[in-house]
């Protein structure tokens, strides 16, 4: 019996090991390294064969062989991936000139047609092309949407950019909608995104460095910064961190964020992101570096400071008074969202003497019939709320409304009437929930902190919450984002930068760039004394 079992187990072990080994060899043979390393051959048919082999005869691989030149005595082939290329462009600007216009040429003029560079220079009416000699390069270009022109007898090939991109238009982003301010937002195309930034900052100092990350996805990633303002050390650091990423695919900028952030185990993000070109432009103007990733509208910006979470682009477009009030409100909302349930539990379970008498009586009356301890009550409500939120986000908006109605009825009314939850608890959780959405950049960290503080409040009351706050504060103070202290300008203190933290001073007052990002650049961004005032009349 046991013998049988051990044999069986051994068999499975061996099988698993074999499978693993097989898997490795399979993936190895999937990319025919031997062929790819070769240069382009003189023989056209061999080249076509090679490409077909490498591309594993994919159905959208189109190979068009044709004759051209005087008396049609030259043969060539155009290879492209039909799903990626703009066929109209190929017909109009590549095939048309080659097959018809070249017929007009005289015999002696077509002698040079073997020289592929000459074709590009004199025949094709298309701007973006490059000469390639390696098969590896050919495949890369082919996969990124270029059409490859091969001519029999030439060891070079032309990669003609005929890419067709399906893309959304420039729409207003859902995540950062504004009442006043530009409504354009990035889309999934990196070219469009770069153009949107370029249009905001028409300056030759705007540097755009492109690199490709991802072994399989070959995603384009662009580092964008203002050469005159960005600290070259930070730019270098960004370059270095990006270049060490070795991954099979980058599907969203979130991948990049996790590879380059300073504190991967922190719940606070040290890399900010935005969908709005105006916001990215304003960060670039403060000397930050933006990282654009093809395929996502979310652009990363480094370094990030904590105070940025409370800033919205609209703050700078509306008048400073309202903006300042909103800033303070956001800060209050942040504290409410992380401390709400924790303070409720701490006060009602540990420090009843701190609640004013009348309020205590009301709270006690609400809690009279609830069968759970306050901590459990709070936990239940928070979990139900988070489930509701998650369900609401993923569902289509038509059903999402149903969820919110059910949620409001179940949570707000039925639970209270059934005596499961006290009405005050509903108010606390509802306030907490609303507050957490007021500070969107920190929504994820505040959700985690909320449970953390609730847990501490349940154990040790106000003392526990204080300890938790201290731990959080120490952690925040220890964070750095690309060398910049996360709590700057509050700690280390910088008075002049405080104009843009708790309040938003008038724009003419904020005449200095943030000094935390400085190197040897002039911090003055506008002349002083720009305060508008009536002209003094001369008598």
């Amino acid at each position, binding site marked *: 019996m046991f013998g049988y079992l051990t044999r069986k187990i051994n068999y499975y072990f061996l099988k698993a090991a074999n499978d693993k080994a097989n898997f490795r060899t399979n993936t190895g043979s999937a990319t025919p390294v031997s062929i790819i390393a070769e240069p382009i051959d003189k023989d056209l048919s061999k080249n076509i064969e090679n490409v077909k082999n490498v591309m594993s005869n994919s159905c959208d691989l189109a190979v068009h062989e044709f004759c051209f030149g005087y008396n049609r005595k030259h043969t060539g082939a155009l290879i492209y991936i039909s799903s990626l290329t703009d066929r109209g462009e190929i017909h109009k600007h590549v095939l048309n000139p080659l097959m018809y216009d070249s017929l007009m040429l005289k015999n002696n003029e077509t002698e040079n047609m073997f020289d592929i560079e000459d074709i590009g220079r004199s025949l094709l009416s298309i701007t973006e092309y490059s000469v390639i000699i390696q098969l590896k390069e050919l495949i890369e270009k082919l996969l990124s949407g270029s059409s490859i022109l091969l001519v029999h007898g030439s060891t070079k090939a032309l990669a003609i950019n005929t890419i067709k991109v399906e893309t959304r238009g420039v729409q207003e982003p859902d995540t950062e909608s504004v009442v006043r301010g530009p409504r354009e937002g990035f889309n999934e195309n990196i070219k469009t995104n770069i153009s949107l930034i370029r249009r905001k900052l028409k300056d030759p100092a705007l540097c755009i460095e492109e690199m490709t990350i991802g072994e399989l996805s070959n995603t384009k990633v662009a580092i964008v910064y203002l050469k005159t303002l960005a600290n070259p050390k930070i730019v270098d650091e960004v370059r270095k961190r990006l270049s060490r990423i070795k991954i099979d695919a980058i599907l969203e900028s979130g991948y990049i964020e996790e590879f380059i952030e300073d504190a991967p185990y922190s719940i606070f993000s040290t890399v900010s992101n935005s969908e709005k070109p105006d916001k990215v432009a304003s960060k670039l103007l403060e000397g930050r570096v933006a990282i654009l990733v093809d395929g996502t509208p979310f652009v990363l910006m480094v370094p990030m400071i904590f105070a940025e979470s409370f800033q919205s682009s609209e703050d700078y477009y509306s008048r400073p008074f309202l903006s300042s009030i909103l800033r303070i409100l956001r800060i209050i909302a942040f504290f409410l969202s992380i401390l709400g349930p924790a303070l409720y539990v701490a006060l009602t*379970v540990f420090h009843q003497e701190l609640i004013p008498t*009348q309020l205590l009586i009301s709270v006690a009356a609400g809690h009279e019939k609830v069968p759970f301890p306050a901590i459990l009550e709070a936990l239940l409500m928070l979990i139900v709320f988070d489930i509701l939120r998650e369900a609401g986000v993923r569902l289509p908006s038509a059903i999402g409304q149903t969820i919110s109605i059910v949620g409001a009825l179940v949570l707000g009314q039925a639970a209270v009437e059934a005596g499961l939850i006290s009405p005050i608890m509903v108010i606390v959780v509802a306030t907490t929930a609303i507050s957490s959405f007021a500070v969107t950049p920190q929504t994820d960290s505040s959700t985690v902190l909320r449970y953390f503080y609730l847990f501490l409040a349940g*154990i040790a*009351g106000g003392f526990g919450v204080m300890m938790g706050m201290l731990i959080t504060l120490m952690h925040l103070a220890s964070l750095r984002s690309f060398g910049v202290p996360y709590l700057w300008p509050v700690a280390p203190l910088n008075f002049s930068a405080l104009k843009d933290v708790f309040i938003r001073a008038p724009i003419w007052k904020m005449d200095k760039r943030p000094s935390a990002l400085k190197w040897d650049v002039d911090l003055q961004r506008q002349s002083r004394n720009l305060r508008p005032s009536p002209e003094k009349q001369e008598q």
Partner: protein
Amino acid sequence: MKNTAVKIATILLMITLLFGCLDGRELSELEIVIGIGIDSADDPDSIKLTAQVVNVSQLGLSGSGGDPDSKPYWNAATTGTTIFEAIRQITHKTGNRLFVPHCEVVIYSKDVAKQGLYKHLDFFLRAIEMRLTSFILIAEGKAGEVLDAKPQTEELPAVNIYNLVKSYGFTSHLYDVTLKEFSSRLISEATAPVAPLIKVVQEGENKDVQVMGLAVFKEDKMIDELNMDETRGLLWVINEVKSGVLIVPTPEESGVAVFEIETAKGKVKPEITDDGKIIMHIDIKLQANLSEQTTAEKLARPEIFEKLQDNMSEVVVQEIMSAYEKSSKTGSDIFGFGDMIHKKYNKKWHEQLEEDWEEIYKTIEFDIKVDSKITKTNLLKNPVTQKLGG
């Protein structure tokens, strides 16, 4: 890495298991006490303690459930030889421990106060949960009855009493004496404690409570009472007059002008003259506005105002003197003059005065300066009945 994870897990486990829930108490386990009354019991050695406990389900937010006839509070009473014993005995009735930080008022009945309060005060000063900001009151009659007179607008009698005391400033006919104030007067060598008086007034079918006047103590025993005017006499001196009504005779016709006190400031300077006389220089600055007049004469004239101001000052002086005279009969220094002299003439106090301050107190002379000012006549300049008066 693995080590750190183990360490963190251990610390978390220790935090959760060793902390437990500290001294957490769920709200439903609490009996919120908002007022305490202390009466004498049949047995002279023990007292009867009434704790007013909030019946939270009656005060429910939604109003669902609850019997309209039953009260939103419950006066749990028990007897014991000491306060603490009695308070713990109440748990036989309530099931839960009493939660006293929200106790707003502590009411002693007059007979308990006359026997001496100290032994019934110690617990309140010593208890960690108790607050020294609770008001102390002396009930004419039973403290338990005072706590049971259901107010018309408030739900809870103790809260009502708290509000009554708190709003003393409208008349300045009493004074909000907290446990702290009372005990600091008790500790002092010279100053006599005072506490506001409360009584139940039968109004038809309803029982109302009413606070006015002060009980005067000698050491910890109640010996005397101050009426409303005498109380204000005391408040002028200790600078506690907030507002109030001053009735001043008009100079020309027989009638009165009624003033509302706007601001009042009292300052006292003790002086011991070379021949050993004690003179208290009392300086009172007073601003008042004319709120009512019963005569038809035109008061808003500078010369009349001056006379009115003099009359007003006279009224204030009378109030102060009446308070002094009342207290000098029993020799209890309610003003705290003794402490003022102690501060200024430290040596003389210890050498000559401390021993028989009670007697010396009766011989104090006064130099009272009242600076009254009429600031406005409110909306009317002259009375509408001016024609009648001519």
